[in-house]
């Protein structure tokens, strides 16, 4: 029987020649991830095993990124718990404030993600690494504890939906618009319990950062994972970041998909998801006049260097609209440095934006940009649920860095085309 790319990775890690959808398997994990919100719960559960070591101290990554730099005393206590655990169990990949970044931007950059890996993380956006041809998925803290103890975890073999990409993006359109378009098409549970696999001639024209963004938001369609084929773009990224040799899996040509959806990248318009679900997607042409109070550019979805470059192209030599608070978060220390060296930070500050240290902060309504009652934000983040960025009566509109930057300049949700950048 033929298998999808995801099924092959799971079969290999379960030591099975063949798996079928619905089958429950125990599989070896290559990396276990946790953050400052989920790790303290996992550490409590891990203690119940009474073990003096984790299954492999080089295969656990702990990233304090959500409420850091510590936003209050309770958050500081949680980070302290995690730091102490990392110290006591000699965890090799613990990233302190100063070395850290938002986990899903940080791990690939630090070479901890390889094509063909099986990665689990106690964070729903762990599905990001499918961009590099890994199987990665979000789990809970108890799963994280079990995987730290045993190096294994249970999985149900998923069916898959295939997206066949053709064409190339037009100007100002990127991976974010594609994924919002897809979620708008299939809904927030459109891929529930399933994989989303990408294929087609259009893949080659997408950048690594586009693919990270797309796979990052697979969870917003309910998917177990999103995954791209490993092509020259992915291999080059892996070769320049990861010391291990890649293991490339390809879907069988006759693999069964629940359905295949064709998407012409050239037909995708800048897309915005209206409150309070990521599936409420509208093209920029359908948006109308929506005045805003805040713009957030960053997060595990869109805080990478190419995202900052796009924002800078629009903000350069211009000023953000009066009354719009524009907050920009490079996702890692390395991206921060690169943005500094390229002069992007100067462009942002001169435009009237603020630049923050890497943190998940406002994306989940933690800190560093919380909304008041009735306020609206355009954000390059991943969720726009009720109360997500602050008050229950506030609103989040999800968009690309280009739309977010254009909106910062105009004070309303705006099409980047109208800014007049050559």
């Amino acid at each position, binding site marked *: 029987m033929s298998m999808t790319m995801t099924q092959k990775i799971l079969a290999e890690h379960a030591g099975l020649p063949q798996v079928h959808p619905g089958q429950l398997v125990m599989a070896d994990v290559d990396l276990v991830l946790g953050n400052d919100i989920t790790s303290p719960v996992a550490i409590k559960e891990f203690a119940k095993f009474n073990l003096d070591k984790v299954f492999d101290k080089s295969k656990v990554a702990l990233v304090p990124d959500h409420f850091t730099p510590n936003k209050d005393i309770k958050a500081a206590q949680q980070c302290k718990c995690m730091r102490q655990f990392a110290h006591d169990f000699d965890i090799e990949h613990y990233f302190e404030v100063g070395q850290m970044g938002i986990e899903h931007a940080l791990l690939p950059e630090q070479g901890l993600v390889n094509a063909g890996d099986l990665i689990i993380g106690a964070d*729903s956006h762990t599905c990001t690494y499918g961009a590099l041809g890994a199987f990665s998925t979000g789990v809970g803290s108890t799963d994280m504890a079990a995987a730290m103890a045993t190096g294994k975890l249970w999985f149900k073999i998923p069916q898959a939906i295939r997206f066949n990409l053709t064409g190339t993006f037009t100007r100002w359109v990127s991976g974010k618009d594609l994924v919002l378009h897809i979620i708008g098409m299939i809904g927030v549970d459109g891929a529930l319990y399933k994989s989303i696999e990408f294929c087609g001639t259009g893949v080659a024209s997408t950048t690594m950062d586009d693919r990270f963004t797309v796979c990052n938001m697979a969870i917003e369609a309910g998917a177990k994972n999103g995954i791209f084929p490993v092509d020259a773009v992915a291999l080059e990224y892996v070769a320049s970041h990861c010391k291990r040799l890649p293991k490339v899996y390809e879907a069988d040509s006759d693999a069964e998909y629940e359905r295949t959806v064709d998407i012409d990248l050239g037909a995708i318009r800048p897309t915005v998801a209206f409150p309070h679900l990521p599936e409420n997607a509208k093209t920029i042409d359908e948006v109308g006049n929506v005045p805003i109070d805040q713009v957030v550019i960053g997060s595990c979805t869109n805080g990478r260097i190419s995202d900052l470059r796009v924002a800078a192209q629009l903000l350069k030599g211009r000023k953000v609209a009066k009354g719009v608070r524009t907050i920009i978060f490079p996702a890692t220390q390395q991206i921060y440095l690169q943005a500094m060296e390229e002069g992007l930070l100067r462009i942002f500050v001169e435009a009237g934006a603020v630049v923050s240290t890497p943190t998940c902060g406002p994306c989940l*309504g*933690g800190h560093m940009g919380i909304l008041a009652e009735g306020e609206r934000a355009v954000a390059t983040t991943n969720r726009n649920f*009720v109360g997500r960025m602050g008050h229950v009566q506030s609103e989040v509109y999800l968009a690309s860095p280009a739309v977010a930057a254009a909106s910062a300049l105009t004070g309303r949700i705006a099409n980047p085309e109208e800014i007049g950048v050559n």
Partner: protein
Amino acid sequence: MKAHGTVFRYKDNVDTDVIIPARYLNTSDAAELASHCMEDIDPTFIKRVKAGDIIVADKNFGCGSSREHAPLAIKTAKISCVIASSFARIFYRNSINIGLPILECPEAVKGIRDGDTVEVDFTSGLISNLTTNESWKAEAFPPFIQKMIEAEGLVQYLKKEMAK
């Protein structure tokens, strides 16, 4: 084992941000988390809920974040069972892993209203609406998951397995 209680009825896509808002995630204390359970979708929930009560919702319950704090808050608020047309997959895993009983049964969901009294027999999967005298059968869990539920969660299950 049976559950018996009054129903709190919700619609589609109840996300983990409304089950337990992130602003309260600076603690992992179960009682403190439970005191904010459902706060952003139903501010009076925590005042009204009684031990044994049941949450019933339409599709994709628990979508969003991987925060195990969400099923933990529900379990600690003494909800005996969550019945939904479908669950988001991480919430589904987390509930089984921590021993919060959940059942997928779209037919039952259609026949249950807010405030109804419902009884659930976990052994047979029988869901009975005592207010309307209707009943439905939820699909049984696969044997592996049943073993985990019997062990009251993943950690206890694995400890038993490791001791063998």
